[in-house]
C-alpha cells in the first residue's frame, strides 16, 4: 500500500530534480487556491476599505522607514553561528572515524567561537534594549 511512495532506484541528481518539481507544484497549488478564492469570493473596493488597519485611527505614518539597529546585531551574530554550524556539520558526520584528532580540532574551533560569544555577551550585544 505504500508502494507508491517507495524509494525507487533514483539516481543522485534525480532526487534534487524531484525536490525542485515538488517545490514548484506546491507553489502552483497555493497560487491556484488564491486565484480560485478570488473568483469565488465577492470583491468590492472602497476608499475606506483600502485603508491600512491601525485600530480605527487614520494612518499617519509610513512603516517603510529605518528600523532599530538592534535587529541588525542579532542578524550578524546569527550569520557567524550559522557559518560555524556549516563547518561543524561535515565534521559531525565523520566524527566517528576521526578519533582524538577530530576531538582536539573541534575543541580548538568551538573554543575560538565561544570566545566570540563571550565577548559579544560581555559587550552587551546580546542584551535587548
Amino acid at each position, binding site marked *: 500500500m505504500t508502494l507508491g511512495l517507495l524509494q525507487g532506484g533514483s539516481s543522485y541528481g534525480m532526487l534534487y530534480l*524531484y525536490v525542485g518539481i515538488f517545490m514548484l507544484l506546491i507553489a502552483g497549488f497555493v497560487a491556484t487556491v488564491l486565484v480560485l478564492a478570488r473568483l469565488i*469570493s465577492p470583491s468590492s473596493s472602497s476608499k475606506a476599505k483600502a485603508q491600512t488597519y491601525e485600530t480605527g485611527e487614520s494612518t499617519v505614518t509610513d512603516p517603510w522607514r529605518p528600523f532599530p539597529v538592534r535587529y541588525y546585531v542579532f542578524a550578524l551574530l546569527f550569520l557567524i553561528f550559522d557559518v560555524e554550524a556549516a563547518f561543524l556539520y561535515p565534521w559531525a558526520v565523520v*566524527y566517528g572515524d576521526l578519533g582524538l584528532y577530530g576531538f582536539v580540532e573541534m575543541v580548538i574551533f568551538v573554543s575560538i567561537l565561544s570566545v566570540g560569544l563571550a565577548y559579544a555577551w560581555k559587550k552587551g550585544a546580546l542584551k*535587548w534594549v
Partner: protein
Amino acid sequence: MQTVLNLLEAEPIRLFVSFGAVLFLVLNLAAILTMAERKASAYIHLRYGPNRVGPRGLLQPAADVVKLFTKENVMPGRSDMWVFLGAPIAMFIPAALVWMVIPFSPDAVVANLNVGILFFVAITSIGALGVVMAGYGSRSTFSLLGALRGAAQIISYEVPLILSLLGVIMLTGSLSLVEVVNAQGSTFWTWYFLPQLPMFLTFYIAGLAEVKRVPFDLPEGESEIVGGFMVEYSGMTWALIQAAEFASMGLMSAINVTLFLGGWQPPLPFLDFGPFNWVWFGLKTALIMFTFQWIRWSLPRLRMDQLMDLGWKVLVPMTLVWLFVTAGAMLVIPGN
C-alpha cells in the same frame, strides 16, 4: 498486479502520487490541528468548544474552509501586491516540502535525500522569509513590527536548533533521516532522547520558537500588535497562512519524533508491525503535537528580552557544552 507495480515505479506516476499524498497529509493535518487546538483549549478552559457542525462538532474545519473560501480578500491600498500575495506561498512551501524527507514507516519516504537534516534546516528557514514578506508587503506598522520580531526570533532560535542536531549526526554518522531512524533501534531506551536529553530539550524549545507557538508568539502578539505580520490578511490568504502555521507545527513534531524519539521504531521489539509501523510514528507525533497545544494554553508569552536571553544565553551555551560531552563520550566509550 505486476504491471500496476511497474506503473507505480515509473517516475512521473510516483511523482504525482507522492505529491498528492504529501499535499493530502499537509492539508488534512492543518484542518485536524485547528480542530484539535480549539477542542484542547476548550477542555483546558472547562468549555465544550465547537460542537454544532456535525457529530460533536467534527465537521467544523470543513465549514471553516467553505466560509473562508467565500470571504473577500481585502488588500490595503498602499500594500505591495506581489509581496503581499507571495507571502502565503513562501510560508506554505517549507511546511509542505520537508515532509518529503521524513520516513513514515520502514520503506515509505518520498525522497531519501542523503542530506536530509541539512535539507530540513535549510528549508525551514524559508519560513522567516515568508514572515518578513507578509509584514513588509502589508505596509502597516503592526505588520512590520510583527515581521521584525518574527525575523529576529526565527534567526536567533535557528542557531540552537542547528547546533542541537549535531549530537544526533555524530551518533548516526549520517545526515539522512532514514539512517537516523534506523540507527535508533526498536527499544525505547536506545532512542536518542536519552543520551541527548539536553539537545532534545533545546531542539524542542527552539522548534517551538521556530513555529511561533506560545510562549514564543511575539510575531503575532494579538494583545499588543493585534495579529502582527498577518493583521492585514483576510479570507483565503489568511486561511493559507494559518494552514501553513499549523502544518509547520505538525512538521516540527514529526521532526522531533524522527530525530529523538525513534521515528517509526516501536518502543519494544515485540510491538513491531512491519510495514504498519507508521502507527507508531503517528502516535508519537500526535503526542508531541498535544504537548505543543498543552503548552500554548498553559504558559504566558515571553518578553522580547527574555526571549533573546533564553536563546543566546541558555540554549546556545547548553548545546555547545553537550557537544563536548557527546564528543568526549564517543571517544571514551568505543563502539557507540
